[in-house]
């Protein structure tokens, strides 16, 4: 691994153990945002910082290929990027995947808003569904705002990963 001489096993081991916890906390923040501090934005940024930790300690290749499972890592071909079609790196490679995420996030947020119009409500109207008498849970409260927050989450994750990947590879 190229980052061997950059970080010690100590750091890598610690990072390995805290990254899932950070993601866990991030998702917690995302889900609880409606009732407690948090929300899509903070959840998203925290998720990305977890990835950033991996990126810093393990390198970009590891992050995109091993962890996020993007097989076509343009990063790997960075050295030869100039001879390749330069566009491809930005569309089908890692960066392309990352940037698709924020597009989807926006679509989710806006699409949820448009959903309201389908129900005859103004754009971005939110509703809450209460399900009573559910076993174990009692009352489940499903806020449509969660979809919006999820959109925000993906926008943040996609954008920040894109920024990190592009700037980091410079």
């Amino acid at each position, binding site marked *: 691994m190229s980052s061997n001489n950059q970080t*010690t096993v100590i750091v890598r081991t610690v990072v390995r153990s805290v990254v899932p916890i950070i993601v866990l906390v991030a998702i917690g923040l995302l889900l609880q945002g409606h009732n407690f501090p948090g929300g899509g934005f903070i959840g998203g940024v925290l998720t990305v910082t977890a990835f950033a930790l991996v990126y810093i300690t393990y390198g970009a290749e590891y992050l995109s290929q091993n962890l996020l499972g993007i097989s076509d890592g343009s990063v790997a071909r960075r050295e030869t990027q100039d001879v390749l079609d330069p566009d491809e790196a930005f569309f089908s490679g890692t960066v392309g995947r990352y940037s698709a995420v924020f597009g989807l996030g926006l679509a989710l947020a806006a699409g949820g808003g448009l959903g309201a119009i389908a129900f005859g409500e103004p754009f971005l109207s939110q509703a809450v569904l209460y399900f009573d008498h559910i076993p174990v849970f009692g009352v489940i409260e499903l806020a449509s705002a969660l979809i919006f927050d999820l959109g925000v989450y993906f926008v943040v994750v996609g954008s920040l990963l894109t920024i990190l990947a592009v700037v980091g590879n410079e």
Partner: protein
Amino acid sequence: MELHTIQTAIVAALIVVGSAFLLVGTIGLLRLPDVYNRMHATSKATTLGAASIFLAGFVHFDAQAEGLSSLVGIVFLFVTAPTGAHMISRSARKMGVEFGLGEQWPSRSADDGTSEDADTE
């Protein structure tokens, strides 16, 4: 009532201890002669100080939602703080920050290219 008072007392004590160690860590940060020695103070005292205050939070908020995340916080601090200190001190040496009190790097480390840097400084 009684229980509550004891709980309050524990919280107060933890806060006092925590604040004290935060202060100690910072004084160390200011007083100690170089970054390596300063890190002794910060990695121990400051971490313990913060952990102590986390613990105060745990006691104060019972063992429910908020309290439990205090515990996670404490664990997190103990895992990450020394790692951070390790990274910083390692990097400091790599970039050639000299030891302030004549510390010597243990000799013989042919394969550790960075130690050469430290030696040549």
